[in-house]
């Protein structure tokens, strides 16, 4: 099966000329684009073939996207298939909660495995740039259990942690 890729991608020589920070951003953006253009998922080798990027680089970025829950993967045999982490169920299903220099963004997402609440942690650096630091996905049907669990933990540990209201 052929993988969909953006109509224009930089050649490996051009990517090589980029500064390290730009290269990281470019490759991550490109891989994210490819994931969103292929809703049925892509394998590392397919991205490597389509972009001529280094296999290690592609794997590193895919794993990073999985770690921050921008993507998820399912293991098939010896390889893994990577998917973009769903789309917003409704444009208004999002909420931003700024706490200190961090922002917690809540989204209701839909992907092949069902509906999820996605909580993404973003941090603002000294240049006021926001970067995604991590995220968790909770199934919508498990949300109340999760809330109860969180509440229980706060009560249990209230003597030891300071809860700011």
């Amino acid at each position: 099966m052929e993988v969909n890729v953006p109509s224009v991608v930089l050649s490996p020589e051009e990517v090589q000329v980029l500064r390290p920070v730009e290269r990281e951003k470019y490759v991550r953006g490109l891989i994210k684009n490819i994931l969103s253009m292929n809703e049925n998922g892509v394998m590392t080798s397919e991205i490597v073939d389509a972009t001529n990027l280094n296999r290690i680089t592609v794997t590193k970025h895919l794993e990073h996207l999985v770690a921050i829950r921008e993507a998820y993967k399912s293991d098939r045999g010896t390889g893994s298939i990577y998917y973009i982490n769903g789309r917003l169920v409704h444009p208004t299903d999002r909420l931003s909660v700024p706490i200190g220099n961090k922002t917690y963004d809540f989204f209701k997402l839909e992907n092949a495995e069902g509906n999820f609440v996605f909580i993404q942690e973003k941090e603002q650096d000294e240049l006021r740039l926001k970067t995604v630091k991590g995220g968790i996905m909770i199934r919508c049907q498990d949300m109340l259990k999760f809330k109860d669990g969180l509440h229980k933990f706060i009560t249990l540990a209230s003597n030891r942690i300071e809860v700011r209201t």
Partner: protein
Amino acid sequence: MNKSQVQVTHYPHRKCKFSESVDLKINNKTLVTPTFAPRLKSDGEMNRYSTVRNTYSPRQLSAYVVRLLDTGRTLYPTMKKTATSKLIVDQTTLDKKFAPQPGKKVLLVDPALEYLYYATNMERLVNTPFVSRTIRKYLRNFLEKSKKLENERNEGKKKVISKRLFVDSEHTNFWTCVYKDANMRIRLIRDTLTVELKAKADVLIPPVPLITSPHLLDVAIFMNEKSRALSPALSEDKRVCADYFILKPKVLRNQRMMSTIKEYVSNSESPLTLFKFKNLNLNDENLALERSAFKSFLMELSLVAHHVENKAFGLLEAGNQTFPAAFSSFAIVSTGFNLDREDRRKDPKDINPFANRYDPVNMTMQNKDTFLQTVENNGKVIPCNCKVCTENPTIPNNFIEYNRQAKEHYLLCREQEMIEIIDALEKQESQMAFEKLQRSSLKNLIDIIPR
């Protein structure tokens, strides 16, 4: 989860035949098109534009264009003034006060690399730090070689290459190098887009050559595509990168090149495409072929704008074509704001201190003497209903005040023209543009409006 930074909203009641007025949302700023974007080239012009914006709140003047080589003297003096007069208290104030562009206006920074071909502004390009080092290096070499050739020509040496041929070959060679050398190309794109981002441009405009041949058209398309691919790696908020074509008027006669451009434009992923026809005056009697080609070009663009989702067009340095282009398919039209075009090549001593004044009926510029004569013939009343003319019925003798009024009057006249277009579209009066041009000195331009 990110939406495109450029969104076009169509309204059925603001559409008539090939013309349409849309809401163009760029970087969270909404323009009701057609929008007139004056090209500002100095701090003084910036002040005039800001004054008009603050005093009269013109809706159709919500965008402005600054050439990359002018950013230093246009956008940054405002920052300097603020820095010396205000005590900065915290980071928020700092960010707000140091922003080079005040208010909610859309800023386009034009790389204007046609000056690698035209001698005007070459010296300035060599010395400005805002232009990529690649460009400055090329221009330094070019000027050196050019001087050497000039000397050889003066010495009467045989077999000296003609000036035009020399410029053509050097220009084409430079862009061929850019086309072939990944390092040079990426540096040029990165440097240009970075300066645009620092100037807080709302749309990124790629560095492209002046298209003089089919080969340079290929280079321009290539640069547009590469810039679009690279731009997300440079801008934090994934600012949209427009497509840009700078064309010589003679390209209009080349059907093959024009159809390549049309094909590219309709398939391109970029929501905004900007065009610049260098030194084009379609009101010229001798340009009948160009007029017909321009008309078919406008028709094609208008069809693309109507049928392709999220697509808008802009025309920079529109000159006399400003009004018909705004009426046809261009969402943004821009032209110079200096009002002294014919004085550019004169000796500084001979330059008339009084700027030309826009005549809203003839739709052309008139010098002070003609303007005074017109006022005299009109019973000593300025024949204009714009707010500047009604608030200042006497003509100032002081040239500074005269020029200030002329510039503000010009902006308000253009605003009025854009409003007239929207009104005509809402009333489905497609004849309005023809009638207006028929009454003006730009009668030949009637031929370029699609019908």
